[in-house]
């Protein structure tokens, strides 16, 4: 496969070092940064289907919610100590969510284009309604996650590094996947699924695996966020299509669909502007956010990285047709 350029390794190292130092450099902003890592997972997992595979899902928040609830239920009912229960909860959340995505995928991923989008939208909404009426999950009043056994500062630090770990693992998993046969195959499905089928690709298998990977990391994030917030509301936290569900799409589009760095960049820019709006435009923050969305769609339909890539394609390892390139010289 194409070797990654040196500056990409420098970038990864830089972000990694900064991420490890942030709790001590900017201790007052630790929760914001925890949520930044969560946002990065949202954008990356959405882009796996929406950007790389061309399947615009409006219901990925389903797996986030399943993760949040599954983890909380295990923590409530297992009777183990806090950290063992949390670890077991996260594991169960990831497994359950992956299983659900595999089962749903077999049917839902058979639909294409708008049909897939509408169907996933329905799934997300339906899940919220089910959770809101299910006594076992606390119904409309939601679930409260267990009290963290240590102090507040320690708790913040713990969840910061938990989110960072999930995000890091997710990022490197996806990066590795995109460089392998899997990445090329889902790109092919995005470009022309009929052609991919005509060429004998196991399209259903690739699509299902892609959804399972997204569901796995979203569920882990869901488990972490449920504990971070301390309270799981069925419609406002777990299956919150209007906030998390829409944000994950926006962040991926803002940064640039179909790239590994686009969603990361999009999540950072989006989270930062959102926090700024909340601080300086209080009362109007949702209006400002809406205006921002309109601006993004009108002026950066390809996203920030997509726009940069159009301006300097060579920087992204793409070639443009020039005469210099012809024939033997390039061998």
């Amino acid at each position: 496969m194409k070797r990654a350029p040196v500056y990409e390794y420098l970038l990864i190292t830089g972000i990694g070092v900064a991420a490890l130092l942030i709790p001590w450099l900017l201790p007052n902003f630790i929760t914001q940064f925890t949520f930044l890592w969560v946002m990065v997972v949202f954008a990356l997992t959405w882009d796996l289907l929406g950007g790389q595979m061309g399947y615009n899902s409006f219901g990925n928040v389903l797996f986030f919610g399943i993760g949040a609830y599954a983890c909380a239920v295990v923590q409530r009912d297992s009777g183990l100590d806090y950290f063992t229960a949390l670890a077991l909860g996260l594991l169960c959340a990831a497994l359950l969510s992956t299983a659900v995505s595999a089962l749903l995928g077999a049917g839902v991923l058979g639909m294409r284009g708008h049909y897939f989008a509408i169907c996933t939208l329905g799934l997300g909404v339906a899940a919220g309604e089910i959770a809101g009426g299910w006594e076992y999950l606390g119904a409309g009043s939601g679930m409260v996650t267990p009290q963290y056994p240590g102090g507040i500062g320690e708790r913040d630090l713990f969840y910061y590094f938990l989110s960072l770990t999930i995000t890091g693992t997710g990022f490197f998993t996806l990066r590795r996947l995109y460089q392998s046969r899997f990445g090329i195959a889902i790109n092919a499905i995005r470009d022309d699924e009929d052609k991919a089928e005509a060429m004998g690709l196991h399209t259903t298998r690739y699509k299902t695996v892609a959804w399972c990977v997204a569901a796995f990391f979203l569920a882990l994030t869901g488990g972490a966020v449920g504990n971070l917030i301390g309270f799981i509301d069925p419609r406002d936290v777990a299956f919150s299509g209007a906030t998390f569900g829409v944000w994950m799409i926006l962040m991926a589009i803002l940064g640039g669909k179909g790239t590994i760095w686009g969603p990361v960049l999009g999540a950072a820019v989006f989270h930062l502007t959102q926090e700024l709006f909340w601080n300086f435009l209080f009362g109007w923050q949702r209006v400002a956010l809406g205006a921002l969305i309109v601006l993004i769609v009108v002026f950066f339909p390809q996203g920030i990285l997509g726009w940069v890539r159009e301006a300097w394609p060579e920087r992204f390892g793409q070639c443009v047709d020039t005469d210099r390139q012809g024939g033997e010289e390039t061998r």
Partner: protein
Amino acid sequence: MTTLLEVQGVSKRFGGIVANEAISLSVPEGGIIGLIGPNGSGKTTLFNAIVGYYPIDAGSIRFEDREITRLRVPQIARLGLLRTFQQTRIYGRMDCVHNMLISTPHAHQGLWSMLTHFPREDREKAESLLEFVGLYSKRHLLAGDLSFGQQKLLEFAMALMNEPKLLLLDEPTAGINPTLINGIIERLQRVNERLGITLLVIEHNMSVIMNLAQELHCLSRGRLLASGTPEQIRTDQRVIDAYLGVQ
């Protein structure tokens, strides 16, 4: 020669329109067979029926003595029966090499192989096939940036990458610069002779198909009108009438 593809009594209707009516033909292994007929005579419909894209209403299709009538498109493709499209289809936002790499045969790929990188042999094969069709210097360009003719060549190279036993070509010379057509015919013949790939070709350019094919089948209004050597077809009064519109 043994029979590779056996089409028997295949019918396909779209509502009241009969696109294919009881068509029977066979393709011998190693041959180059032509499929001709006026516009709307059901040639592409027959292709779509053979590769499993359209479920047929009646008849049976056998490939290597195996019933494939009810198999799905990717399953049939993995058996080694591949088609190219009249409206050329490539993966536009990937470069040519990636287009080629993902076209390697998928028959024996397990779940684990999707996580692997492409082996060196695949890359070498991709590059040599791109050289074969004359796209080597364009190999790192996005496929969508190529001209229509170049995309057609790329699609052909992708089909070869897949190592099919039988390749169905839907108008391989349509939309191609006339000066390049001879090059395409020569490549088709080389593929047939050296790689042993059997070809079933839809073609409107009569001088091309008469030189290329050993046997021709002519469709008209969804029915098989005539079959035979190019010489027989050329002089068949029914074929001439069909093309000239005599009732």
